[in-house]
């Protein structure tokens, strides 16, 4: 009884949790998401009105007089409200749906638009940018797009089926092994939102999120320039010790830090990891404490992820390593 009461009390919290703006399709900041938002309200309001009308007719039939019942059961009413009206509504919705699908989901990807390759990997996102000059660079767990410009996302997967869903930007699209699915997105407002893998892909599926950053066009070019640059050299003695530990302890076998000997490709590229909005695919805040937690205890934070926990470092070494990684801005 008490358990049921606790669960009932927790239900409103779940509902309130759904009101969060940063991963809500009800706060669109992309052209595709805006169309989905309009469709949602057309369907919800239209469906609500029809449901209310059916309820009203039901109440009339139960409590109304025989005259009302005769009207409701007349052949014209049955054919009109039961056949012709649904047929007309469904036809209109089909036309509207087909129009939206042509405009968004099936719109051909514009040639010459910036291309971002996103690969779903259990349980993080490899993101590779290729700009108009043919410059290519790699990052992870963040998708940066320019506002007002259509960007082609080439979606693939390294292992199982994932689904790329940035609710504020566009609809979702599956990442299927052996295929490259193209999704064209156009951000309409600058800002930061959150995305999520929308296809169950294993134990840590729920922790496979990402951040979408929509920049004004000039700011995007600056960001891209910064991201293309090699990693910042360590500033302090502590950061230098951290870099030394990073390179000596084998971290570079899995992670790349451009401008150093670390050139691993198994895990996320860490060249500018300190400038990212989060760690562990939007699982932790990006700060030194989170780096330390992740290095030592990542299997508790994200069970079965590809990185083993490293408990070989002393507290001082861990501090230095975290400082170095946090300084890679």
């Amino acid at each position: 009884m008490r358990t049921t009461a606790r669960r009932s009390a927790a239900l409103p919290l779940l509902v309130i949790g759904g009101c969060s703006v940063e991963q809500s399709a009800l706060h669109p900041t992309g052209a595709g998401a805006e169309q989905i938002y309009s469709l949602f309200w057309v369907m919800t309001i239209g469906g609500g009105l029809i449901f209310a009308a059916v309820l009203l007719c039901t109440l009339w039939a139960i409590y109304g007089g025989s005259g009302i019942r005769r009207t409701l059961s007349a052949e014209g009413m049955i054919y009109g409200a039961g056949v012709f009206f649904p047929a007309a509504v469904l036809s209109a919705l089909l036309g509207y749906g087909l129009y939206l699908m042509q405009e968004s989901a099936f719109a051909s990807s514009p040639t010459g638009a910036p291309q971002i390759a996103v690969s779903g990997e259990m349980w993080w996102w490899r993101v590779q940018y290729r700009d108009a000059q043919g410059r290519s660079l790699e990052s992870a767990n963040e998708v940066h797009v320019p506002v007002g410009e259509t960007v082609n996302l080439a979606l693939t997967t390294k292992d199982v089926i994932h689904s790329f869903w940035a609710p504020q930007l566009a609809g979702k699209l599956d990442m299927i092994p052996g295929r490259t699915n193209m999704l064209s997105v156009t951000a309409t407002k600058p800002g930061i939102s959150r995305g999520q893998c929308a296809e169950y892909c294993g134990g840590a599926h729920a922790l496979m999120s990402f951040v979408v950053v929509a920049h004004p066009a000039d700011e995007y070019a600056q960001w891209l320039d910064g991201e293309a640059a090699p990693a910042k050299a360590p500033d302090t003695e502590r950061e230098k010790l951290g870099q030394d530990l990073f390179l000596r302890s084998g971290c570079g076998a899995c992670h790349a830090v451009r401008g150093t000997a670390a050139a691993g490709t198994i895990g996320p590229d860490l060249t500018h990891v300190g400038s990212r909005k989060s760690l562990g695919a939007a699982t932790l805040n990006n700060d030194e404490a989170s780096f330390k937690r992740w290095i030592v205890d990542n299997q508790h934070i994200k069970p079965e992820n590809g990185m083993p926990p490293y408990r070989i470092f002393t507290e001082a070494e861990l501090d230095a390593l975290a400082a170095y990684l946090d300084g890679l801005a």
Partner: protein
Amino acid sequence: MSLFARHDSPVIGALFFLLWGPILWAGHLTIAYGGQALLCTLAASSADFDAATAIRLLIGVTTLASGLASVFGAVVPRLPFRLLLRRRPVDADDGTLIGIMRLLSALASLGILFAGVTTAVLPVCAQGR
């Protein structure tokens, strides 16, 4: 006596008559979806194969044939009635059977049209979602 159990007409015939439209609709969906999947698979393995034309032709012909047959059932139900029940409609029960069949056939015609139009309007062999 129920609508179906009459000594002078086959029950299975009455069932097929009643489901004239839905059966055509089911056939149309099977050919449309199955044919499209098959032709898209062929197109993926052969660069010379024009899947779009083949699919539009297949679904256009299937939609036209099944749609017309379904509309025909809704407009002239007495012919399929005689064909499937091997007798003429005689009483109120037969009238009810015909009424339900016409309604289902009309709705099935709409369903066939919806699926056919969708294939004509959207790109064929588009990426999986």
